């Protein structure tokens, strides 16, 4: 392709990765389309409240306020140079076109793409606990979203439980929040895990300092922090009233009216899957992820991956990865790019990857979770499937792979389509079959990426790719 060919580059996701990608493409004279499901750009970390909300950035984003504001300003400044389509869910990809559902009008249309950058980010990773479906239990991310987006707290006496950097961050944000008390931070990771990660984290003093500061602040404000815990159960009748946890020797009961629960993040990979990207197991992230090179090229020519959707590395890395993927896209399509900048970004991404790996070691998934999960533990809340049902299925049918387990038990068949339950289900299947979790596979992606209304109005009919003579049967 020559540099005069107009390139219809499309970016999915207006988080840090997508926005930096858009900025980079625009700076090189392209007019990319930037699509985002959310009403306002910023992604998960720099999520913006509705326009008429009047809280200052400092209150919303704390120490990250400057970065948040810079990113928002970048997006606002790009309006004339990009085609920004908010409120638009990409629900399918087929034949060089994306299918978009515009939320407010419930209309769908197709969008042709040339090169495509997938910057679809992440959502919470949850390991269920008995009682986790009681009203008052939220994911850590949801607890934060409530605060950031709507200015609401999930409760007045809140326990934050699970593991990961977000655990402490959300605890600080809640402890600072007027009218809310943080009853405890219950971390399933051990102090030893965290100490062991310190040397690697020293490479990134700012991140380490932010974490240490957060912990010190919590302690100074009397918030109890317990490490190496195991959740036993969430108690309550109509809603959460307490959590029972174990320190290994003893059980403790702690009254609370809400719980934020989470074990880090999981990449949102369905679009990459629909685009037929090759997936590989990432031991560091304990997940099957779309493969990509250092610049973000996926296994499918013309499809680039950036940010948390390609592996959890955090917001700073997402910004670098978005810019790097955009440079790769430009170079692959014959545009001149600054090679030194590209190398600099790759170096920075390399550093941040090591930090990410250190963080993963500092906050590991509890390896004994599946072994300890009682048979009655509900895993799939859409379909009411328990750990015991999965174990029985593995035992009685020999199911040893996630898609077969789904077919036989319905796990992952509900509205969430496995976003919430698939990880826990895989852990249980691995435990039940005595195999490493990577060998039980991953659920196949199928459209729609999220539920779509039947009554969607088609704005633009797809160009006639209808196959001949439809198979006629039932």
């Amino acid at each position, binding site marked *: 392709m020559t540099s005069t060919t107009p390139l219809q580059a499309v970016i999915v996701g207006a988080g840090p990765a997508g926005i930096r990608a858009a900025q980079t493409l625009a700076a090189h004279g392209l007019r990319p389309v930037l699509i985002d499901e959310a009403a306002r750009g910023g992604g998960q970390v720099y999520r913006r409240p509705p326009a008429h909300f009047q809280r200052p950035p400092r209150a919303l984003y704390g120490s990250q306020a400057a970065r948040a504001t810079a990113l928002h300003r970048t997006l606002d400044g790009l309006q004339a140079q990009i085609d920004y389509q908010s409120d638009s869910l990409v629900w399918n990809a087929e034949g060089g076109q994306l*299918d978009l559902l515009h939320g407010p009008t419930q209309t769908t249309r197709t969008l042709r793409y040339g090169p495509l950058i997938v910057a679809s980010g992440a959502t919470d990773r949850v390991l269920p606990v008995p009682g986790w479906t009681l009203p008052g239990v939220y994911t850590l991310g949801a607890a934060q979203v409530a605060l950031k987006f709507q200015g609401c707290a999930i409760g007045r006496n809140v326990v934050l439980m699970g593991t990961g950097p977000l655990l402490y961050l959300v605890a600080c944000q809640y402890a600072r929040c007027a009218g809310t008390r943080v009853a405890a931070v219950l971390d399933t990771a051990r102090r030893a895990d965290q100490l062991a990660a310190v040397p690697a984290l020293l490479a990134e003093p700012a991140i380490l300092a932010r974490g240490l500061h957060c912990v010190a602040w919590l302690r100074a404000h009397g918030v109890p922090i317990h490490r190496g815990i195991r959740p036993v159960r969430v108690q309550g009748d109509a809603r959460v009233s307490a959590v029972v946890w174990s320190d290994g020797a003893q059980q403790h009961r702690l009254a609370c009216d809400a719980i934020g629960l989470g074990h880090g993040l999981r990449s949102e990979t369905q679009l990459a899957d629909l685009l037929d990207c090759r997936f590989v197991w990432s031991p560091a992230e304990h997940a099957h992820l779309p493969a990509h090179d250092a610049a973000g090229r996926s296994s499918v020519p013309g499809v680039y991956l950036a940010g948390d959707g390609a592996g959890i590395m955090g917001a700073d890395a997402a910004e670098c990865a978005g810019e790097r993927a955009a440079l790769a896209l430009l170079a692959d399509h014959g545009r001149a790019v600054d090679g030194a900048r590209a190398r600099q970004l790759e170096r920075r991404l390399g550093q941040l990857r090591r930090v990410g790996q250190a963080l993963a070691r500092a906050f590991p998934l509890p390896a004994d979770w599946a072994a300890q999960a009682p048979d009655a533990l509900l895993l799939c809340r859409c379909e009411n499937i328990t750990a015991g049902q999965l174990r029985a299925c593995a035992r009685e049918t020999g199911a040893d792979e996630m898609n077969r387990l789904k077919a036989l038990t319905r796990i992952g068949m509900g509205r969430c389509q496995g976003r919430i339950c698939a990880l826990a289900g895989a852990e249980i299947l691995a435990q039940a079959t005595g195999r490493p979790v990577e060998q039980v596979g991953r659920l196949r992606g199928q459209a*729609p990426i999220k539920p779509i209304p039947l009554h969607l109005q088609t704005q633009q009919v*797809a160009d006639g790719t209808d196959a001949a003579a439809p198979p006629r049967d039932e």
Partner: protein
Amino acid sequence: MSSSSRIIATDVAIVGGGIVGASAALALRRKGVDVLLLEHDLCGARASGVNYGGVRRQGRPLSQLPLAQRAHQIWADLPALIGTDGEYLRSGHFKIARSQADLQALESYQALSRDFDLGLELLSGASLRQRCPWLGSHALGGSLCPQDGQANPRLVSPALARAAQRAGARIHERTPLDEVLHDGRQFLLRSGRHLQVRAPVLLNCAGAWAGALAAQFGEAVPLRSGHPAMAVTEPLPMFLPWSLGVEGGSIYCRQAARGNLVLGGGSGLALDAERARSQRSAIAALAVQAIELLPALRNAHFIRTWSGTEGYLPDHQPVLCQSRRRPGLIHGFGFSGAGFQLGPAVGEVLAELACDGRSSTPIEAFAIERFAAHIPT
């Protein structure tokens, strides 16, 4: 799985662990025959496990009705046979007419199929509205087959293979047949480097992939792959008692035990030889037709779409017969979008052909010779 390179001998080898191959394995074991089945992936992972789940006789060509009737009897006892109810329900199958011509077609089908005891009941006008308050206004009438119904293919097809295994069939999953030879007396099958099987009889139950095997033994057929598009809604309160079809084709739908509406119609898209998915045009068409047919779906959501790979023959009839070229080779493939209901009976017929050389059910219409033009002489 065998890890030695020794040759396993068996009476009957089966290629393909769909509902057809698994049913044949079970039927053979019930006759006491030694049987070994090779399945490329997992049993029931292809068409047999991802289909719509319609278990109907109504609307089939008359030539298929003896086979369908035989299957109907087996389905009645399926829970006992395979150890799960597979959500099989004789819920009724209702074929909708949208025009007077459709109504007449349904009437004449009722007359033509009179000998087969399908119990077809024609509905129209006030009785239609009274019995189907959920039906949109496009429907003029229809034909109900009360004893036809639906089942969950994801459960039934793998369970058939497990039942065959419990009955003593040797089932090798994740074991593709890579090569087959005939030494003049027996077939020699090879999978990878470690598994070899020797058998005097070979059943070709490889679904959409059966053409290569037939061709290798001199019986090329115009088999092509098709990919029916499927979609499912979120669970809804139960309101649809019957499995619905439409005279002349287009959409079909049923409500699963869980409350989800399962819908099919139109064509999917092949990703490669094995994988397929629904395509946007089919999804859009399904959505429009579904709301027309069942206005209650107006506020529902699709939560997933999928497709599968099925073998079609030009006349939409299967190939179910002994090979004319290679004694010992028996074909059972090409069910053209309608083999789920037939599967258990096809298994029995294949077992009869293997043991007795003839079937007690008429299958003349399914002979491979009808494609003689394609078979080089």
